[in-house]
């Protein structure tokens, strides 16, 4: 009997201590882990959509709360500001829209006047050779210099030439960028004043 109790106590204590240690380590590494993740996963896209900044957009990232979801939890979104001499002149953030095969997520770089600096497709699962061609610079490059009015497919009176045979994918990218540009006025105050 004493043996059994000893076994239970020892194993419980070891597991408990292990749990405490791990939750502590997890907490301590929370910040650097998130930073490392953003650095390697998002920085390449941020570099592709913004230029001429001298800060670290990942380190200076701003989290803005955009309303609440159905359960009442705040919806938070990350914005990556591009600064020159300490002044924010543009911001990069992601937006997504459903393409032909699930969501296409796009990193959009916009300056303070609402002009697109560049876009880059971060993730998609479109058809290779058709929808996947939306990632090519010949398509994404069309967005540079446009404002909300211009970001639309030519068929709908905009300036974006859809990729032939991939109008759904092209439309999804346009919708994602439009969504981002429509969001801009709401967050402008918070992002550009910091």
């Amino acid at each position, binding site marked *: 009997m004493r*043996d059994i109790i*000893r*076994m239970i106590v*020892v*194993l419980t204590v*070891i*597991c408990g201590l*292990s749990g405490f*240690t*791990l939750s502590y*380590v*997890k907490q301590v*590494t929370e910040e*650097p*882990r998130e*930073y*490392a*993740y953003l*650095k*390697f996963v998002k920085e390449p896209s941020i570099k592709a959509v913004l230029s001429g900044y001298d800060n670290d957009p990942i380190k200076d990232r701003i989290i803005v709360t955009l309303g609440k979801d159905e359960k009442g939890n705040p919806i938070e979104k990350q914005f990556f500001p591009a600064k020159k001499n300490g002044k924010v002149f543009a911001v990069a953030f992601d937006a997504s829209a459903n393409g032909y095969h699930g969501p296409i997520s796009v990193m959009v770089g916009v300056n303070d006047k609402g002009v697109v600096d560049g876009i880059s497709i971060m993730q998609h699962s479109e058809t290779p050779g058709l929808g996947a061609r939306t990632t090519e610079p010949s398509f994404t490059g069309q967005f540079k210099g446009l404002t909300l009015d211009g970001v639309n497919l030519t068929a709908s009176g905009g300036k974006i030439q859809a990729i032939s045979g991939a109008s759904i994918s092209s439309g999804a990218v346009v919708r994602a960028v439009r969504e981002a540009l429509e969001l801009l006025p709401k967050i402008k105050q918070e992002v550009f004043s910091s």
Partner: protein
Amino acid sequence: MRLVNEFTKGLWREVPPFRLVLGLCPTLAVTTAAENGVGMGLATTFVLVCSNVLVALLRKLIPSKVRIASYIVIIASFVVIVELSMQAYAYKLYEALGIFIPLIVVNCIVLGRAEAFASKNNVVLSMADGLGMGIGFTMALTVIGGVRELLGSGSVFGVHVMWSSFEPFGFMLKAPGAFVCLGFLLGIMNIIGAKK
């Protein structure tokens, strides 16, 4: 004297993947480049040393019937610590090693040393044993990784060293290449060992 002996046995006489032929899963899987070998080796060394020390410390406290469960919990905790810190401070390596970091838990070298050595010896000797075995494992992984990287992509530690017309053997980077490489190295070690 015993201390030195326990430390050096892991470096040559009992170098884990070649002599004990233990821990082959990471040995074969992650050694596509020398750098991955070093990273995996160092992560394993950390876990080995820490778990050996803790197991040796607790060896009189842990009842023998639950020892394996206790060792696994101790080892798993250190592995998670390694995983979290790698994710925070060496993200590239973390991506390259992927699933094989959590799998250090089931690396039989770690449990093997805890069971065969640390549970019977004092803290200092266990630490020397863990350190020696870990360094031996790191060296072995680095050598295999180096050979495979040299033949498979013509470089060592990411630096191109082969002549320009060298055609890399893509085969060496695949699983069969790992076995062939391990086989040759085992053979070479046996030839050297037999002469003594």
